[in-house]
C-alpha cells in the first residue's frame, strides 16, 4: 500500500462505507481542529464517539467521552487518531484487541507511523495516514473548492448543495483532476529524513 498518495477511490470507499468513527484525542475546546473536525463529521451524519481519558464524564456535542477504545462497548467502523506520530502505536495495538476489530485506522494530518500501519494492514484493516477526513470529505464532495483548494476532481454533473446535517454524495460522477504531486513528494521526503 502506497501511503504517500492515495487513490481517490480508496478514500471515497472508506468515507462511504464507515458509519461510526471513534476519534482518539477529540477535544472539547472549540478552537482545536480535533473539535471542529469532530463537529463537521457529526454534521455529515457519522456516528461520532469522542475518546479522551481527560474528559470522561463530560460530553462533546451531546456524545459522552469515553476513556479508551475498549470502553466504547460496541463495534466501531473507524478509529480516527488525533495524536502525534509518536503516540500512534499504542492506539493501534489497542484497536487490534477490539472484537470485532475496526475496519479502518485513520491518522490525522501530520501523523504518520509506518510500522503501526503495517501492523494494522497485516490484520486486514485499511489505513490512511497524514490526512484529515474533514478535508477529504470536503474535497470529494467539492465543498472545499469554495476555499480555492485544488479538489483534484472534474465533473460535468451538478455539485451537491450542502446543508446542515446532510450527507453529501462522494460518488458523484467525477474523474481525476489536477495533481498535487509536488506536495505529495515533499510530504514523503519529510517522513523519510535523509
Amino acid at each position: 500500500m502506497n501511503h504517500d498518495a492515495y487513490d481517490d477511490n480508496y478514500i471515497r470507499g472508506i468515507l462511504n462505507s464507515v458509519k461510526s468513527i471513534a476519534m482518539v484525542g477529540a477535544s472539547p475546546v472549540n478552537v482545536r481542529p480535533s473539535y471542529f473536525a469532530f463537529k463537521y463529521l457529526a454534521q455529515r451524519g457519522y456516528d461520532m464517539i469522542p475518546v479522551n481519558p481527560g474528559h470522561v464524564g463530560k460530553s462533546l456535542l451531546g456524545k459522552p467521552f469515553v476513556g479508551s477504545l475498549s470502553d466504547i462497548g460496541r463495534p466501531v467502523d473507524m478509529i480516527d487518531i488525533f495524536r502525534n506520530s509518536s503516540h500512534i502505536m499504542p492506539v493501534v495495538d489497542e484497536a487490534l484487541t477490539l472484537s470485532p476489530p475496526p475496519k479502518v485506522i485513520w491518522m490525522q494530518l501530520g501523523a504518520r507511523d509506518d510500522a503501526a500501519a503495517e501492523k494494522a494492514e497485516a490484520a486486514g484493516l485499511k489505513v490512511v495516514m497524514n490526512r484529515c477526513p474533514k478535508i477529504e470529505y470536503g474535497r470529494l464532495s467539492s465543498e472545499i473548492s469554495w476555499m480555492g483548494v485544488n479538489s483534484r476532481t472534474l465533473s460535468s454533473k451538478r455539485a451537491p448543495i450542502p446543508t446542515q446535517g446532510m450527507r453529501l454524495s462522494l460518488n458523484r460522477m467525477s474523474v481525476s483532476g489536477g495533481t498535487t504531486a509536488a506536495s505529495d513528494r515533499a510530504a514523503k521526503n519529510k517522513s523519510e529524513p535523509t
Partner: protein
Amino acid sequence: MTDRLPGFSTLAVHAGAQPDPTTGARVTPIYQTTSFVFNDADHAASLFGLQAFGNIYTRIGNPTTAVLEERIAALEGGTAALAVASGHAAQVVVLQQLLMPGDEFIAARKLYGGSINQFTHAFKSFGWNVAWADPDDVASFERAVTPRTKAIFIESIANPAGSITDIEAIAEVARKAGVPLIVDNTLATPYLIRPIDHGADIVVHSLTKFLGGHGNSLGGIIVDAGTFDWSKDNKYPMLNEPRPEYHGIRIQETFGNFAFAIACRVLGLRDLGPALSPFNAFMILTGIETLPLRMQKHCENAKAVAEFLAGHPAVASVNYSGLASDKYNKLARKYAPKGAGAVFTFSLRGGYDAGVSLVSKLQLFSHLANVGDTRSLVIHPASTTHSQLDDEAKVRSGAAPDVVRLSIGIEDKEDLIADLEQALSA
C-alpha cells in the same frame, strides 16, 4: 471512475467549474454579491472561526472567484490558490505572510519594472528589505542569504527581455537556506512552464496578462505548491503561531498542505483588502479556456517576428530565447520546450530616437503599458515601465535606452511583420 489524469487543455476548460449546484448553469455564473446568508448563528460562528467551508463576504472569498482559484491551482499543480485584485496585490499578500519588519528577501534583478519599484520603495516602509541578485549568476543568490532572509523571488521568463531563469538551480539555493522560492510565472503561464515541477514553493501571477489574455481585466493570483514545511524552526510566525484573531488556531497545523493559501486569504486578503471583482474573475476564467490555443499562436508568431527582426539591417540585436543563437536558448529548451513566450526586446542601431520613431510609425502594434494581450503591443521601457530606475539599473534589468519591447499577439504573423517592416524602413 478512473485514475487517468486529464491533460492541460482539459483542465483549462473544466478544472474548478462544475455546473452550478442551484440552477444547473453550465458556465460559471457571476456571483455579483458582497455577502452570503448564514444558515443560523452556529453556522456563522463556524465560518468566522475557519471551522467550516463556506462563503461569508466577497472580500474573503466568492464562488465565481473560487472557480478561478481552483482552475489555476490545478493548471500549476498546486494544492490551492487565492485570487486578488492584481499581480502587485499578490506580491504584497505573499510577502506579508513571510516577512516581519526588519526581515529580508532576495529578488532577481531582472524583473518587471513595477515589481522593482514595489520592492525597493513601497516595501521599505513596511520594513521589508530586498537584496538583489543576478538571475544569470546563481552564486549571487547564495551570497545574499543572511539569517534574516525569508524568501527568494524570481520570474520564470523575466520581463522585459524574455530571458529564462534557471528555476531548479535557484530552488536548490532556497532549499539550502530553508526559505520558500516564489516564482512570478506571468510571462510563461503554466502552459509553457510549471515552476512547481522545478522546485517553486509559491507561484504568483498577474492574471491581467496571458492568462486572462484579452487585455480587459486586472487580476492576480497566488498558488500554494504545498511543499514548504512552515512548522520548521518557527521562522514564519504568521503560519506557525496561534492566531489571536482566530481564537488561537495555528494555520499550518489546521490546514496542512494548503496552509499558505489559507494564510494569504484569512490574514492577507481579509485584512489588506485587495479583493478581485467576481466580474473580472469571470472574464479571466473565460480567457483561460483558450489559454493553450492562444499560447501556441503567441509563441509561433513571436518566433517568426524575432527571426524577421534578427535579419533586418536596422536592428542591432534581438533578445528572444526561442532563437537558436540566443544566450538563453539552452534554458528555454529545458524549461519551455513548447515555446519561449511572446514578450521580448530588441535594440535598434539608431538608438533611443530610432525607438521613439518606430513606436510612432507602427499601425497594428499598440503603444501601451501591458503585455499578454490578443493584440500585439509595443513599448519603449526606458521611458515608461522602467523609467523610474536609474540608468545603470535600466541596463541591468534589460531596459537600456535603445531597447524596444514587443508583446506579440495572435494576429496573422505576416501582418505583424509587414507592420514592423514599414515602420523600420520609413
